[in-house]
């Protein structure tokens, strides 16, 4: 059982998370990569800038990965998210999960990406080929859980 999570301003590769999961007790590894794509809502994208509330994002990503591992029961989870500029085709997020069983490995990856989308304090500034840019509308704010609420 192991869990790793981090935010980074360096290019992110599948190998970065794959290297941190899997062992001889596991039979299945699932991976998810989110990449910057060319078109969004009809506009041509040149790249993306990810801003984060870094210390909180590190906490939240660690919590999400730990929750995924808890659901997994056995195995390992690694999750990394970019900050800074990501070029077209580059990975903004990389998630890997290893488990003795494939259903659980897929489910863990799904859990992490779905939670990232609603909870991780990260924002993206989409840059278009015409030189304009816009902050992307994101997920509605999560309802604070009692355990998370400040005292």
């Amino acid at each position: 059982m192991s869990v790793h999570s981090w935010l980074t301003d360096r290019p992110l590769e599948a190998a970065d998370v794959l290297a941190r999961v899997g062992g001889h007790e596991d039979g299945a590894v699932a991976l998810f990569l989110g990449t910057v794509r060319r078109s969004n809502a009809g506009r041509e994208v040149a790249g993306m800038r990810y801003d984060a509330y870094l210390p909180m994002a590190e906490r939240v990503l660690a919590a999400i990965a730990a929750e995924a591992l808890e659901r997994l029961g056995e195995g390992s989870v690694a999750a990394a998210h970019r900050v800074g500029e990501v070029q077209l085709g580059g990975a903004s997020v990389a998630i890997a999960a290893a488990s003795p069983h494939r259903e659980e490995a897929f489910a863990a990856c799904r859990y992490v990406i779905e939670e990232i989308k609603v909870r991780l304090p990260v924002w993206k500034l989409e840059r278009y080929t015409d030189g304009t840019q816009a902050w992307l509308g994101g997920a509605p704010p999560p309802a604070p859980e009692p355990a998370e609420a400040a005292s």
Partner: protein
Amino acid sequence: MRVNILLFAHYRELAGTDAVALELPDGATAADAVARLRAAGATLARIPAAPALAVNEAYAPLETALADGDEVALLPPVAGG
């Protein structure tokens, strides 16, 4: 008491800064901090009256009572992944 307001993404652009220190009366809530900030300028008023927020790096409701030195982050809808 004195709290530090952090601003991100679109809110940061509206504020023209990434952080604002506010002096608030004892017993003030996060909602009071937001109201004070929104009253400080025309573009600041475009920050929603009830934004998502975090107090000391954890999501927290608007009615959270603040303490001296708290860090209150106003969070636009998140867009990770």
